[in-house]
């Protein structure tokens, strides 16, 4: 069960459209054993889902049709570190925390790493993309990837971009040459570039096109780190201050915590200047001289925007807490995650709207600022999975936030499984089209992380099939009773058929036929269609029950 879920717990009803567990958990230790596994899965039509440590909440690493879970946590080597190239090559299963510790001892660090760095794997974050610690200066993690090695759904090993390796001990050289030649042909037939230039096509796609096995990442010198934190009475002041800070200096990291977040942090109970306030925390990573100038600017801006600069001890507290955002979960104890990417200046309105739409829910909101004027707004909806019914109907709120993002010119933060409906907007028309073309070429039988990003047919549960039949049957039966539909054709058919010896009223037969249609609809509907039907239903149920 542990490998069949991520940080969120799914309501039971979700298992009507995705399978509740993998059939087998595998943990390959090298590329060749993984290649063999993929060949076996391909021969037997078994779905494969690559998995890091499942620290995301978007369903990218959970099963949809059972099959193999490929846990990459057995591949954790640091292969090459080259300070002249400012790059490090690692196997995909290593955690960001381990890599950071290694680099720290050498006086280096990573420009961007996830807030779940202690447990998240390098491959997992590269496969999903997104913002992390350091994005305020360096942007999305995918811009920090020099190159990757990956295995395609047909078992071919390819290297994309510039992967730094010890060429003398490269045992996969021949296999890679063959794989790259094959991929080049496929890319050119799709009108795309060479493997060297197409790293981005394979990263950030949730392992639907390949399983990432090695990654070369950019490194930066570990200059002086100075955390800072400021508290504000209103989000408008906080956003004004953040906007000015971003325009005047280049902070390494900038994060905001809304009032409903700080009021839930037990550690802040004794700090009345922070508890229940809006907190802007961050860090500078630069030379001593630059940091001295920048910290003065932060102090001035904060004072001018009615904020209060907190002391160093508090600043370090927030810096250390950046890796423990999930502590808020205790207030649930379960969470329904909802996150969006939105323009920074829209944050006050988004916050207001989110609070009003989720006024009956326990919510904590925080966000991370990027270098392109956008911010991720994380809405932790705190719930209790033990209250089965309310937890189930409450799940629509996650999708409600995704819709809200669109209304304010934003996007859902990630695609994964649950936001597949927004994939086209998320990747952009052209890129999404390219991805679809490549998915068809590389994985025609759809075994590699099926249903994620591109959607697909659901694994429908027995209960849903029965429900589909009943809805069809009752609908047609009631319609037949209430609306004068001409059933003469049915009577005539009965008269001429072999069934004429037994009298069966036409209405139940119509109901049966409609029930059969309902059953077939549920059997053959796609994941996104199921969500399109299910979410409004949950919303209506929730509204009725609230009344």
């Amino acid at each position, binding site marked *: 069960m542990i490998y069949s879920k991520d*940080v969120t717990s799914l309501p039971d009803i979700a298992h009507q459209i995705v399978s509740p567990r993998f059939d087998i958990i595998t943990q390959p230790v090298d590329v060749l054993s993984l290649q063999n596994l993929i060949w076996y899965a391909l021969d037997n039509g078994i779905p494969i889902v690559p998995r890091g440590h499942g620290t995301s909440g978007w369903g990218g690493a959970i099963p949809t049709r059972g099959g193999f879970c490929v846990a990459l946590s057995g591949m954790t080597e640091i292969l090459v570190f080259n300070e002249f190239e400012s790059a490090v090559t690692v196997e995909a299963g290593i955690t960001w925390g381990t890599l950071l510790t290694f680099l720290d001892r050498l006086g280096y660090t990573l420009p961007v790493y996830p807030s779940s760095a202690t*447990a*998240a794997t390098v491959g997992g974050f590269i496969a999903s993309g997104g913002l992390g610690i350091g994005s305020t200066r360096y942007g999305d993690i995918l811009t920090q990837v020099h190159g990757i090695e990956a295995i395609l759904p047909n078992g071919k090993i390819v290297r994309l971009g510039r992967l730094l390796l010890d060429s003398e001990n490269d045992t996969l050289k021949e296999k890679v040459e063959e794989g790259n030649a094959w991929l080049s042909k496929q890319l050119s037939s799709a009108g795309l570039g060479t493997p060297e230039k197409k790293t981005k096509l394979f990263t950030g796609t949730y392992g639907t096109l390949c399983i990432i096995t090695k990654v070369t990442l950019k490194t930066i010198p570990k200059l002086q780190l100075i955390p800072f934190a400021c508290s504000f009475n209103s989000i408008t002041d906080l956003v004004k201050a953040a906007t000015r800070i971003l325009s005047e200096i280049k902070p390494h990291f900038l994060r905001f915590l809304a009032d409903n977040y700080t009021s839930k942090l037990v550690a802040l109970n004794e700090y009345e200047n922070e508890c229940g306030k809006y907190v802007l925390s961050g860090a500078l990573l630069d030379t001593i001289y630059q940091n001295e100038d920048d910290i003065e600017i932060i102090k001035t801006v904060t004072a001018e925007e009615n904020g209060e600069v907190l002391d160093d001890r508090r600043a370090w507290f927030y810096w250390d807490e950046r890796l423990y955002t*999930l*502590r808020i979960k205790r207030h649930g*104890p379960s969470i329904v995650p909802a996150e969006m990417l939105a323009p920074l200046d829209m944050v006050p309105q988004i916050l207001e709207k989110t609070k009003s739409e989720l006024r009956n829910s326990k919510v904590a909101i925080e966000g991370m600022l990027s270098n392109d004027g956008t911010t991720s707004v994380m809405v932790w909806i705190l719930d209790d999975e033990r209250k089965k019914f309310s937890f189930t109907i409450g799940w629509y709120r996650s999708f409600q936030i995704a819709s809200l993002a669109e209304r304010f010119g934003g996007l859902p933060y990630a695609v994964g499984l649950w936001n597949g409906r927004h994939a086209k907007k998320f990747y952009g028309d052209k890129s999404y089209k390219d991805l679809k073309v490549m998915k068809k070429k590389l994985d025609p039988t759809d075994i590699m992380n099926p249903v994620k990003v591109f959607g697909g047919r659901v694994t429908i549960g027995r209960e849903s099939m029965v429900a589909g039949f009943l809805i069809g049957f009752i609908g047609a039966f009631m319609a037949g009773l209430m609306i004068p539909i001409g059933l003469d054709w049915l009577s005539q058919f009965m008269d001429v058929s072999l069934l004429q010896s037994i009298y069966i009223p036409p209405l139940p037969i119509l109901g049966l036929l409609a029930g059969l249609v309902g059953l077939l609809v549920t059997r053959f509907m796609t994941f996104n269609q199921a969500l399109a039907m299910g979410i409004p239903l949950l919303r209506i149920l929730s509204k009725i029950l609230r009344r």
Partner: protein
Amino acid sequence: MTKLDLIEKYGQEDEPYVCASCGNCTLVCPVFHELKWESYGPRGKLHVVKSIMEGESEFGKDFAHKIFLCNLCEHCTSVCTTGISLDRFWEVARAEVRERGLLPTPVKFVLKSVKERGDIMWMGSADRLLWMEDVEELVKGRVLKKAKVAYFLGCNVSLKSQLHDVAKSMVKIMDYAGIDYTLLGDKEVCCGAPLGWAGNLKDINEMAEKNLEIIRELGVETVVFSCPSCILTWSEYSESLKEDHNIELLTASQFISRLIRENRLSFEEQPMLTATFHDPCISARVLKSTEEPREIMDEIPGLYHVEMNPSRQSTRCCGSHGLLDIVDPVLASKIAENRLRDATVTPATQLVTECPRCILAFDLAKFTTNYEMKVQDITQLVAESLLPKEEGGDKDR
């Protein structure tokens, strides 16, 4: 749904649901590191408890055994991304195991021994005086003497012969520093920690109070311990200590470091000694006493101190805490060997620590791995390095 009475009684029923399954705990767990199966790691066990609560699994003998395959080393607790106090949870889970009569046999023995003999080794109160051999002059008149400072040895140091030197070293240091101290002698009983590890949370307070009652009668203000787990147990479970803030509990290194700051100790030059310090789990992660031992080592002239990786709060367990050494000695030994390897890759020729269980574990690991490394308690290192008084060692006092 299966009701787990004790988990509910001790308010732990939310914890399996608070878990975000991030796996931080599993990555640092020494038992998982050895056995590799998810169901032996903290995350896996927490999920099994959850499935038992939801009626999907049984609380059987096999799972009960797994609950005891844990060092209670606090590493999972210290890295938990959702802030679950996992070690507390495992103790309560052990109480649940006891309630259901599924305790492993060696654990039953410990419970019986603590209850009937007042120690974990079925020895007896008279044996608690054996360590005083050779230091009779130093300890003369110290047992149950009224004093501000008490030295609490704990079961391992007072009853295991290979650890007697730790106690002798401590009384030498106290004598050298001119401290007026007292010993509980044969009146000392187990601190109560093994009861918690064995699933008897109810009686820990009673054991702690038996000792504290004497300590209060003697007018003690500072209690010095050779075992960090005793401090943790009293601070967490003693009802009276929660209200009485007049008694401070110090680790050996906290006390010695204080003596150094007060200029009561002088050291003689050591002959090019390279040593590394192994942070015991409890003193590093719970008591946060990581700097004092290093300060002490830096004070000793000629001693070159190198760091092990990982160290301080990320230290790895020696494998011998939480009764794992009696439930599965082979597993415990493998964990100790791993930690000893961390020390052998440093240039150090001596491993210093401040927990009797760590010393025992490393001594065994030295034997099984054939690694040549001297293992000592910080107390022993300090006592050995003191400048003889006749050479002016006590000139500052």
